[in-house]
């Protein structure tokens, strides 16, 4: 067996040329062939030390006591490990197997920054030999020692570790030449604790390795490493002399800024014999007594963060890019402590900056498995979930990490919250992924970003750029002013938080005010035709937001409710009305910017609500992009005017904020399109849809929209009228009269006025007039009128309601101003109509009654019954005794019916008497 040790030593001392070294290496390789029987591959020992600088005058290679100061630049960090060994057949020990890949995980928070450390070209390392290291000494950052056996002789070989020029895409690469180049990759444990891991891959099998010791220098250019630098380091250890570095003193290693917890190192490795079968082991740094030794002195760490928030467009109530720049000053002085790192960041955006619902139209979300927070894989979030970019500047890297901000899937994220984001930024093989919770104040929508347990990965700058433009996920405050972002930043070093803040101004688009545009009315302009009904209320960006509105439709635009099943109150309140009660749809546009998001829902007709005979339950699924904010139910009262039966819709408060998202409602578009539900008026007089909108700020705005109508004059009008009385009449009981008017269904003009002149023999009684209800009492509550003032009853059949309108006919005094009125108080389904009929004295001296303001609604039958009785309004003028009969008397009355379109029908009616005996035909 050749004496390779002698060969190597000789070569080293004689500065042999490379060719000779190659010969030695060949022999080395031959000798390295494994001869031991395989046992259990693994680590026999693992030690980890972080040492301070030795005292002046110490022996070369000596170190000081353990470094315990947090965030300090250690003198040297050493990981020493030995492999399991087994005695071979010849009785000598051999490592169980030959290590292939070794990954050394440095403690979390441990920083190794190769930035500004001189580098060695890779080719220089590859062309080196044990005897001639071709990398510049300035690039040396530590040493690699290993115990091996040469020709049966144990030997410890120590070689320098250099900072290599590394290809793009990796953090850094170290290398050593131990007869073969050994490359040591530097990476970050993405998906884990983001600590630094150094990895030796495909270690050469040139000799049995019993133990290795990896030492890295805290400040490579420190003069105290001169004795182990460059030529001063022989492969058997210190060769003597000083080999100073020309490089500037830059910190390479920085200890974590957290105190208390022990520093732990881990090793994960496999062997050439069993590649891929990794064994792992951890070790903590211990003191001389074997106790875990952590770091202390956190109170000495500086922590002076700053925040800056900027708006790309300082315009009120619009989507805008918003940048939040968190700056953590770093101390690059190798002789001083590094700054503290952020453990928890809470950033509260200014009041008024809120999630912009307008973004929901295009927004997607990222599921946890796509974010892959717990793995080293790149996130595969859908592009639609990207809501901005992130940039992280770390001393670990020469340039910033750049990446995306993704919207996390609501409810399906690490926080189970509605709002959360993932940050994913990458550079040079370092991939940082981070989840942050977003709390949206349920009342104000103010946003707070919370990043808990940020990795102990030093960074100097964290910039979150939320996208702007029409798809901006954030909206600016609705008003101008100065707005302040506040923070609460807690470092790893202490529980005390820093609270920097930053303000920006919003000084454009401060319009405010409240002048919404409005359109409303029937979709059809043809008189007497079926139509849909629309309402559209819009406001511009910057205007005050809607709170509620009320809209009154012109008389005659009547819903035919007879065929609609009314939604019960419980279902209406819960937003679970049956489709049978659906009458239309509603779209509510929400969000700032030119492309608001439309929430679309259904409109259901309900029974009585809020004192109104009918109501609306506008049920809007709050599904916006990835968000399901539940079902929003907006209620409205539907009043029917007791005079002209026009409809008034009065909404409750519109939804202002949903789960912390201020809706900034821009547009409310209501369409009632149930077929056959609405019929247009038959009176073409100029009419308007009018109303009032109320803003959240308390402003009011009048709403007005013309409701043009044509074709009224072409509508026919052919009502039929009948009148009858009871034959029997008495002095005390008076006489009866029944009047029936039928207006054939179909496209007919509606009745506008009915005028009847009582027969001279069937006149009103003074006693009834005297018992009329006082005007004031009637106005306040007809039911308070004396019973004697009820002189009859009326029934009006209309398709507008499911049941006929019925009610009493009151004789109501008008004082000295006019003859009393005959007022019909009609009720059905909560609708109350008051139809006044004025009394007058006709030219013929008789009393005539005119119902001059009958609502412009289809009336298929109108019946007025003035019965006999003690309060009968009518009496027989011919009576001179107790009783009498109309059977032999001819009663004639005049009636005139005026249509809504101006057509007039006059009739002279024979009042038939009921109850008369049939005339017997005389026998021939």
């Amino acid at each position, binding site marked *: 067996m050749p004496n390779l040790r002698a060969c190597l030593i000789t070569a080293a001392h004689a500065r042999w040329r490379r060719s000779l070294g190659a010969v030695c290496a060949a022999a080395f390789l031959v000798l390295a062939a494994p001869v031991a029987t395989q046992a259990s591959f693994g680590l026999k020992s693992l030690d980890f030390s972080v040492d301070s600088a030795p005292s002046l005058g110490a022996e070369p290679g000596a170190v000081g006591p353990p470094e315990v100061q947090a965030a300090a630049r250690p003198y040297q960090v050493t990981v020493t490990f030995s492999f399991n060994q087994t005695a071979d057949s010849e009785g000598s020990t051999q490592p169980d197997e030959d290590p292939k890949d070794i990954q050394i995980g440095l403690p979390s928070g441990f920083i190794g920054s190769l930035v500004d450390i001189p580098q060695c070209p890779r080719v220089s390392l590859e062309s080196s030999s044990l005897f001639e290291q071709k990398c510049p000494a300035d690039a040396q950052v530590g040493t690699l020692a290993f115990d091996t056996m040469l020709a049966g002789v144990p030997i410890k070989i120590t070689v320098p570790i250099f900072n290599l020029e590394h290809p793009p895409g990796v953090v850094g690469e170290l290398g050593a030449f131990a007869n073969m180049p050994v490359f040591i990759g530097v990476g970050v444990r993405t998906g884990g604790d983001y600590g630094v891991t150094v990895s030796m891959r495909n270690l050469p099998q040139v000799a049995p390795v019993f133990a290795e010791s990896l030492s890295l220098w805290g400040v490579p250019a420190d003069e105290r490493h001169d004795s182990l630098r460059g030529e001063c380091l022989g492969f058997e250890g210190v060769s003597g002399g000083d080999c100073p570095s020309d490089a500037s003193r830059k910190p390479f290693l920085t200890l974590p800024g957290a105190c208390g917890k022990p520093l732990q190192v881990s090793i994960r490795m496999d062997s050439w014999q069993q590649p891929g079968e990794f064994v792992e082991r951890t070790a903590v740094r211990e003191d001389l007594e074997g106790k875990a030794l952590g770091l202390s002195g956190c109170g000495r760490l500086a922590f002076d963060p700053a925040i800056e928030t900027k708006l790309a467009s300082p315009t009120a109530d619009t989507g805008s890019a918003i940048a939040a720049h968190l700056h953590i000053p770093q101390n690059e002085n190798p002789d001083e402590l590094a700054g503290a790192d952020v453990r928890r960041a809470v950033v509260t955006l200014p009041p008024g900056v809120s999630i912009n619902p307008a973004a929901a139209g295009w927004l997607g979300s990222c599921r946890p498995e796509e974010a892959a927070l717990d793995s080293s894989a790149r996130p595969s979030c859908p592009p639609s979930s990207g809501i901005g970019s992130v940039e992280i500047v770390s001393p670990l890297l020469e340039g910033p990490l750049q990446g995306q901000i993704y919207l996390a899937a609501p409810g399906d994220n690490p926080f189970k919250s509605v709002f959360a984001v993932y940050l994913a930024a990458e550079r040079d093989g370092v991939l940082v992924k981070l989840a942050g919770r977003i709390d949206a104040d349920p009342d104000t929508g103010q946003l707070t970003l919370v990043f808990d347990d940020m990795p102990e990965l030093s960074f100097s700058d964290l910039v979150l750029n939320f996208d702007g433009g029409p798809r901006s996920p954030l909206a600016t405050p609705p008003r101008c002013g100065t707005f302040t972002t506040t923070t609460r930043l807690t470092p790893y070093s202490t529980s005390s938080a820093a609270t920097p803040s930053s303000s920006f101004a919003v000084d454009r688009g401060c319009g405010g005010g409240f002048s919404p545009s409005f359109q409303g009315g029937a979709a059809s302009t043809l008189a007497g035709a079926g139509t849909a009904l629309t309402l559209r209320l819009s406001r511009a960006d910057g205007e005050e937001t809607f709170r509620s509105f009320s809209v009154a439709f012109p008389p005659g635009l009547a819903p035919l409710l007879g065929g609609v099943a009314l939604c019960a109150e419980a279902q209406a309140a819960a937003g679970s009305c049956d489709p049978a009660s659906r009458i239309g749809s509603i779209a509510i546009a929400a969000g700032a910017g030119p492309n608001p998001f439309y929430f679309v829902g259904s409109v259901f007709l309900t029974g009585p609500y809020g004192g109104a005979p009918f109501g609306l339950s506008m049920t809007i699924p709050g599904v916006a992009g990835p968000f399901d904010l539940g079902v929003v139910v907006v209620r409205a009262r539907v009043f029917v005017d007791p005079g002209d039966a026009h409809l008034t819709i009065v909404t409750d408060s519109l939804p202002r904020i949903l789960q912390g998202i201020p809706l900034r409602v821009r547009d409310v578009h209501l369409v009632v399109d149930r077929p056959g539900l609405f019929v247009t008026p038959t009176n073409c007089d100029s009419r308007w849809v009018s109303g009032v909108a109320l803003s959240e700020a308390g402003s009011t705005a009048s709403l007005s929209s013309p409701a043009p109508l044509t074709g009224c004059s072409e509508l026919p009008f052919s009502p039929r009228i009948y009148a009858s009385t009871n034959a029997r009449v008495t*002095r005390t009981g008076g006489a009866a009269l029944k009047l029936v008017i039928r207006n054939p269904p179909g496209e007919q003009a509606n009745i506008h006025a009915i005028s009847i002149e009582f027969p001279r023999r069937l006149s009103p009684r*003074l006693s009834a*007039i005297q018992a009329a209800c*006082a005007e004031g009492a009637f106005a306040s509550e007809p039911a308070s009128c004396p019973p004697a003032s009820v002189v009859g009853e009326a029934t009006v059949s209309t398709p507008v309601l499911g049941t006929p309108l019925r009610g009493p006919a009151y004789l109501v005094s008008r004082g*000295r101003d006019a003859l009393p009125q005959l007022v019909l108080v009609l009720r059905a389904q909560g609708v109350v109509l008051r139809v006044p009929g004025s009394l007058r004295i006709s030219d013929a*001296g008789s009393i005539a009654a005119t119902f001059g303001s009958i609502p412009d609604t289809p009336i298929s039958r109108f019946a007025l019954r003035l019965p006999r009785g003690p309060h009968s309004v009518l009496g027989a003028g011919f009576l001179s*005794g*107790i009783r009498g009969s109309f059977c032999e008397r001819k009663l004639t009355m005049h009636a005139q019916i005026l249509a809504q379109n101006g057509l007039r029908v006059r009739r002279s009616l024979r009042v038939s008497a009921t109850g008369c005996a049939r005339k017997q035909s005389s026998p021939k």
Partner: protein
Amino acid sequence: LAVALVPVAAASPAAASPVVALKAELQPKKLGASTTVSLGFHVTPGPGGDLPSLSNFALRLPSGMGFAATTLGLATCSTPVLFTEGPDGCPHESVIGFGTAQAQAAFGAQVLHERARVSIFMTRPVDQHTTALFYFDGRTPVIAPLVLQSEVLTPKQSPGSVLTTPIPSIPTAPDGPEITIVAFRASIGPRRLRYFKRVHHRLVAYRPEGIGIPTVCPRGGFVFAGEFRFQDGSHAAAKSRVPCPT
């Protein structure tokens, strides 16, 4: 038939007091004969004034004329009967005369002019005074029956009998105007009357004895006088002279 119409301005100091014209008539007009006395008045508002409601009218017959010697009103009727049954409910022999009346109520611009036939009935004496009932049968434009009670008084200072007729308030609708009588004409006496008596188990119609005309006509004729009071406190007086028969 000679008729004298003498309107007398109201004694009330109010300039707007109404003016009443009284008209009297005798038929036949023959001294010492039984006659039918017709008395009528017409109320008009004073210049620029409104027409207040008439609350009382007293018609004084000339001296020597009264109901004492008549056979008018051999039976009586009552107010309830009149209201419930009408004139047909009263005995023929309670009817002592007929007439007409006109009342009105102003509802703003519209004035309700009610015309009524009047039937006059004898009723039970009130305080031992002969008492008559005026039944107003208003039918057009509203059915408005009204009964006024009139006592026949003979004051010591007064030369003749006086028919005093208080008129109650006649309301219309609540807070509405009251109905006021603006014209009234009544004929009391046998003219147009037919009473019946049973003779040998048969009903025989006959004319009752009317009011007797004195046998001597005072100079200037028979003077009828009327005093009228209104609800607003004003009053008016009127006279009507029936010339002596020639």
